[in-house]
């Protein structure tokens, strides 16, 4: 199936039997409305952000190495067999759409963002995106323009940082003592 008519498509990828449409973030809502109304993707299954900070630079060991060189302190065969393909920007947001009905089909719409870049909210297109976008904001700090209520959903309101970012520290949190001011 061809998606040439979808506005704002930069690239169409086929991998593992799945179709990915990489869309210009500025035209995301336009593309989503087209997919919903013309192609019949009325069901937003999931909204999955991912952080690619450090993609292809850590975990590479053994005899391959990366542009940054080989980490001699972490030798062994545990590592990548090849340096993975570079990603265009730091964050991806993938919208997994589903067409219900007689010819069911799935498609992934993907936008790429750098830290601090906003993307338009798709709540007007699929109301179910409301909580998904709040979760993406909570976990990754991605801002969705026009979201009606973009506040944290899983973490506490006064939480600092966005836990699923790759640069979020793991393995402990600052301890506060009772005598502290």
């Amino acid at each position, binding site marked *: 199936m061809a998606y040439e008519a979808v506005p704002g498509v930069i690239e169409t990828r086929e991998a*593992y039997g799945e179709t990915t449409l990489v869309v210009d973030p500025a035209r995301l809502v336009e593309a989503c409305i087209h997919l919903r109304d013309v192609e019949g993707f009325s*069901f937003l*299954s999931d909204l999955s952000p991912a952080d690619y900070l450090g993609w292809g630079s850590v975990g590479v060991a053994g005899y391959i190495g990366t542009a940054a060189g080989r980490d001699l302190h972490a030798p062994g065969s545990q590592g*990548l067999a090849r340096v993975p393909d570079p990603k265009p920007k730091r964050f991806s947001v993938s919208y997994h759409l589903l067409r219900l009905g007689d010819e*069911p089909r799935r498609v992934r719409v993907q936008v790429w963002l750098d830290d601090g870049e906003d993307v338009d909210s798709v709540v007007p297109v699929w109301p179910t995106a409301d909580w998904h976008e709040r979760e993406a904001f909570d976990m990754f700090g991605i801002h969705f323009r026009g979201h009606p209520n973009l506040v944290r959903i899983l973490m506490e309101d006064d939480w600092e940082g966005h836990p699923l970012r790759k640069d979020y520290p793991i393995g402990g949190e600052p301890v506060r003592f009772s005598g502290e001011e």
Partner: protein
Amino acid sequence: MATVEHARGRRIYEGTRIPSPIPTILQVDPAQHDLDDILTVNFGPNHPSTHGVLRLIVDLDGEHIAGIAAVIGYLHTGFEKTMEQKTWWKCMTYPERIDYVSYTYNGLVFALAVEKLLGIEVPRKATWMRMCMGELNRLHSHLIWLGTSALEIGAISMLWYAFREREKVCEIAEMVGGTRMHTRYFQAGGLAEDIPPGFFDVARSFCGQMAKGVDDYEAILNSNKIWLERTVGIGLLSAADAIALGQSGPVARASGIDWDLRRNMPYLAYDEVDFDVPVYHGGDVYDRYKVHMDEMRQSVGIIVQCLERLERMEGEPWIADDRKVVLPPRHELHTSMESLIHHFKIVTEGYTVPEGEVYVTVESPRGELGCYVVSDGGPKPWRVKFRAPSFVALEATATCMTDAAVADLIAVVGSLDGVMGEVDR
């Protein structure tokens, strides 16, 4: 949007009820309620009827709910972050603990995602056993739903009847995988162990008991006046609103959406078994109950068909023969150096999974359960994201609660069947 006329003369509302401008919070409408009369009540998070730790902030106008906001995250345990730190092999343990009631499906969807990236072929015995254990788990999940939801709205005896059968499912799980829940029975490539001796007899006798059990439950509830009063016409959700809110599974099928991934987009071997997809059009708590009951009957039918097929697969392999991914048989470790090395490498370093991203979905007892996995080609997942049907179901709470009384709150939240472990992940 056309009004849906139900056979029993009930109607679902016209138009949309999704609260606007904030779709998941029902705000008090000053045109309909005197703001001085509003009493704001905190409900939960530690309340026995919230199926975990859901907190609702409810604005009441007398008995009626004028506004509602859900607060979630009390069970947020960071599964997705944790899985990024573990090898693929160790990750298999985690998904089952996300939705602790339908654990099998979470394990299955992750195993299917890893297998899709690996391109590994799963033996047919494993495929059929996965379906069999999956449907048993669907019964387990629906029984817990039935028992607890009925308990909350007054049908206390239902809990004991439902848990009578649920206990048998746990016993079968223990027989097969060694523990009553969270068995880690599904591995990338197939199953952890062969089907144990005596499994078929136990499973067959359970199927007989279960079929009779569902009749018993319906005999208690179907025409019980109190049950009908508490459920019929409560928590309405129209088909269009259900799709817009991403509802799936029993909630969608009770709103008249004829959709089941097992039939519409078959995975495993669901295209080779006969079953019906129950669809009701009332969109209320009662129809959600009816969908659950009919699905239990269908699951028993699927299990019987799986058992017939599995019995003819005696002696076949239950896991793929790929020593780079699958642990070697235990007995070989004492005699084969190669096997010992493979075992050591898989357990300590893990196996690597080719670079790529996949999104795999299965029909869990709560609907569309998805798993988005990104691999950089290394031994650990770069990113794992679960599409939790419970999370999405709770989004519909405010919509379903339009015009509801405070007593209906429990019935509605119960009928949406959210498992908080999965909501918060």
